[in-house]
Structure formats: C-alpha cells, structure tokens
C-alpha cells in the first residue's frame, strides 16, 4: 500500500481516528501509519488516555434525586391532564 499519510497529517487526524470518525479508507491509512511510526503511535496512546480521562472524570455526574422526583411528578400530572 502506498504511503498516503505523513506525520503532520496523522497528528491532525489523530483524535478523529480515535473517535472512529474517519472514513474507512482514511482510517485504514491511519492504522497503517501508526503501525509503522513509533512516535505517532506513542502520541496516539497519550491522546487515547486524554479521551478516556475526559469520559470517565466528566461523565459520571448524576441527576439529583429531588430533581428526578420533581420531573416524574410533573410528567404524571401532564399524563393525567391528557
């Protein structure tokens, strides 16, 4: 397979690749590049850890119980009104 992606292009697309937002063709080129290029692979590990950190640290807040109850009560009232 011809080399389509250089390191600068790989860096620009890295996060989109990790989020699985690239077309299959470009994703395949990225994968091939990361398998060959150690510096870009290491950067991919760093960016992956960043994304994982964000998801876990900022994604675990929950809806307060009293708000949940208030909403359920409102919806019931709304349903009864028809």
């Amino acid at each position, binding site marked *: 397979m011809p080399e389509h992606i250089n390191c600068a292009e790989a*860096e*620009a697309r890295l*996060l*989109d690749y990790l*989020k699985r*937002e690239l077309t299959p063709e470009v994703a395949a080129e990225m994968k091939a590049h990361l398998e060959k290029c150690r*510096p870009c692979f*290491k*950067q991919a*590990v*760093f*960016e992956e*850890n*960043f*994304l994982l*950190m*964000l*998801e876990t*640290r*900022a*994604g675990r*807040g*929950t*809806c*307060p119980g009293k*708000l*949940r109850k*208030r*909403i*359920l009560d*409102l*919806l*019931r009232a*709304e*349903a*009864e009104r028809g």
Partner: protein
Amino acid sequence: MAEPSTAGRSFDAEALPHLDALYRVALRLTGDPSQAEDLVQDTMLKAYRAWRQYRPGTNAKGWLLTILRNTFINDYRRRKLEPVAMDLEAVEPHALYRAVEETDPEGAFFSKIVDAKVLEAIDALAPEFREVLVLSDIEGMRYAEIAETLQVPVGTVKSRLFRARRQLQTALYAHAVEMGYIKPREG
C-alpha cells in the same frame, strides 16, 4: 392514578434513562446548578409533549440533547453583546504532547488532577468549544449528530473540537505544572 398510556410507558423507558446525561450537559452549558435543574425540567416537559415526533428505537439521547440545547439557546443564554473577540478559526500551533513526550508520554499527570478541576477547565472554554467537547467527548455523540443538533456543518464541529481539545489539554497541563504533578519542559 390512571394506568400510564403506551406513549407514557415508552417515554419512561426511552427518555428517563438519559436524565443523568441531560443534567450533566445542562450543568456544563449553564454553569449553575439551579439553572441546570430548570433547564432539564423544561427539556423533559417539552420532550414529553413532542414525544410523537420521536421515532422509536432511534437515538433518544441525541433527540433529548437537541431539545435541551435549543431550549438553552432560546430561553437561558443571557443575551450578551456578542461576539466575543475571539478568533474561532485560528489553530493552536502545537499539540500538548510535544511538551510532555520526554517526561510523561502517556499523560499520567491527567489522573492526578481532581474531577472538580477537570470540570472547571471545561467550563472555562468558550461556549462554542465547550458544547462540542461536552457532546462529543463526554456524552459520546457522533460528529454528524452534533452538527445536526447545532445546525452547523460537520467540518465546523471537527475544527471546534480540535481546538477545544487542545485548549483543554493546555489548561490541564498548566494546572498540573502548578500543582507539581508534572515538571515543566526545560527552557
């Protein structure tokens, strides 16, 4: 109490599981717990009344977040004298990775930062950047869904995300340096 209707039951099953996500996003958009509560409540009522328009089995979370975001824009966002003097198109020149590749290539310093500081750094982003980052990287919406929600091209979502992530990394790194979690790069 009357037996819940079929519509009521499907709303309970498909919409209620997303209350946590709605509250998280509301909190990030408004930056204020009591406003976030009102926003979630308004969103759920609107969603309930519009439930016929939701196609069962499609992405309920995305549908609800779209209502939440529109409600926020229309009813909550204080009308500021826009626009902020900020160049939304300019790009941060360097990835943070360059600064840590020698000292902490895997980004271990991220795990030392407390949750509250992570959230604070997210809240400090410009609204245009904060909303795409929250929807994509915290709530897991696809770029195309976000584009539809915000009524902007996918390319705009991508470029805002790119900058949002770089700015957030830079802010977290500065905090980590300040706290001594990581040594700053020489020179």
